[in-house]
């Protein structure tokens, strides 16, 4: 996966997003470059001065200090819970059946068949996630609701059953078990996974629950009585 998927904003100045390709990324604001060095070291090229070596751990820690994937609103500093957190262009696919994997005549498992259907816009708001394929409008009601074409959806975060990153794409499982796979045209899949997980954490915290894990399905438990919601 390209380095700018992991470093989705500049760890030096916080500029968002950080552009790049494959093993290199460059901040369009401060001009700092990031490049895979030997092994897991990242070479940081400041606009002036010598090249520095940094680890992924330290750069990810810097991103976290700058607010991680969020905008600050989800941490209670925004004006409205329903305020837009983020939207992005995506190529999307849905799971349409399975391929059976056999070995010496025995069924040993299944592999989902992803049918790529086109592009659209994914939009995360305070408590909901909406996906609108190009040329189709998603209908917003309570819970999961598809558009006339059966491809878009708008759902409350509580209707998301699982979130995970897989092969550079984000997979979202909805209430009825539908699997959507999103490949981001000009955004980072890791950021979207982190962002969705953060939004789900906030959503459930308001309901007095904490999220134990997000994959293969979202599992929550009650927060202890008296804990800060």
């Amino acid at each position: 996966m390209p380095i700018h998927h992991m470093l989705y904003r500049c760890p030096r100045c916080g500029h968002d997003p950080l552009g790049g390709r494959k093993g290199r990324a460059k901040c369009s604001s401060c001009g700092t470059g990031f490049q895979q060095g030997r092994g897991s070291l990242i070479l940081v090229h400041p606009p002036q001065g010598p090249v520095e070596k940094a680890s992924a751990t330290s750069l990810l820690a810097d991103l976290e200090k700058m607010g991680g994937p969020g905008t600050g609103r989800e941490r209670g500093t925004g004006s409205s819970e329903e305020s837009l957190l983020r939207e992005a262009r995506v190529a999307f696919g849905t799971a349409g059946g399975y391929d059976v994997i056999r070995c010496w005549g025995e069924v040993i498992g299944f592999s989902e068949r992803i049918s790529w259907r086109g592009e659209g816009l994914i939009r995360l708001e305070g408590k909901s996630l909406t996906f609108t394929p190009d040329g189709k409008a998603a209908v917003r009601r309570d819970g999961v609701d598809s558009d006339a074409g059966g491809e878009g959806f708008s759902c409350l975060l509580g209707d998301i059953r699982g979130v995970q990153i897989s092969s550079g794409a984000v997979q979202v499982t909805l209430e009825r078990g539908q699997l959507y796979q999103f490949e981001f045209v000009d955004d980072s899949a890791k950021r979207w996974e982190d962002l969705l997980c953060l939004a789900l954490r906030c959503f459930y915290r308001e309901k007095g629950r904490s999220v134990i894990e997000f994959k293969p399905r979202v599992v929550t438990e009650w927060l202890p009585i008296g804990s800060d919601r």
Partner: protein
Amino acid sequence: MTERPAGEHPMVLYRVLRWTMSFYFRARMKIRFEGEDNVPEKGPFFLVLSHQSDLDSLLLHTFCPRLIFTLAKSSVFRTRLMAWLAPRVGAVPTRRYQIDPQSVRVALRLIERGEGVGVFAEGERSWDGKLQPLRCGTISFLLKAGVPVIPCGLIGTYEILPRWGHMNWFKLGFGREPVIIRYAEPIHFGPHDDRTSRERARPDATNRIASALQAVMAR
């Protein structure tokens, strides 16, 4: 696989590839093995690993003292070639976006047959080389099987091929990167046949496995 009793399936392709790949990896890396005696010569066991790199499963399948089967994400099997090849070298597909009862059944069948099964308990590769939280379902599954759990660490693979990076596969010879494959002593959790017992034992089992993985990953 089922037609043949335990230990008698030929897995010829697997053995040939193990032999071939061992030359490649030894030319590419400086590999050291520690605690291989902890892997039983026969009988079922689970090998639990922390997932740092794409190289982990390749190295494990090549150098584990016994033939090992590992649970691999189902997207690996999407092409015709991989759908044919991967199961013949010990990979068992698992759908990661849902609880996959078929992969659990197959893994338990392999355990019943006396095989070793490798599991990446975090469910995905780490971004920064640190141990991630272990999956609840995986721990319950290990408890259900009730066989020895051997924590295994592959140290150095993250430095060669991190999740966010790429590797020069043709680089051989001098300047070989060090890799340590370390097996810890088996952990015995005992039988946990019913769900309630597994639920009760899960937090402690998670902590024990996580600490053992931390220890085995230490340099």
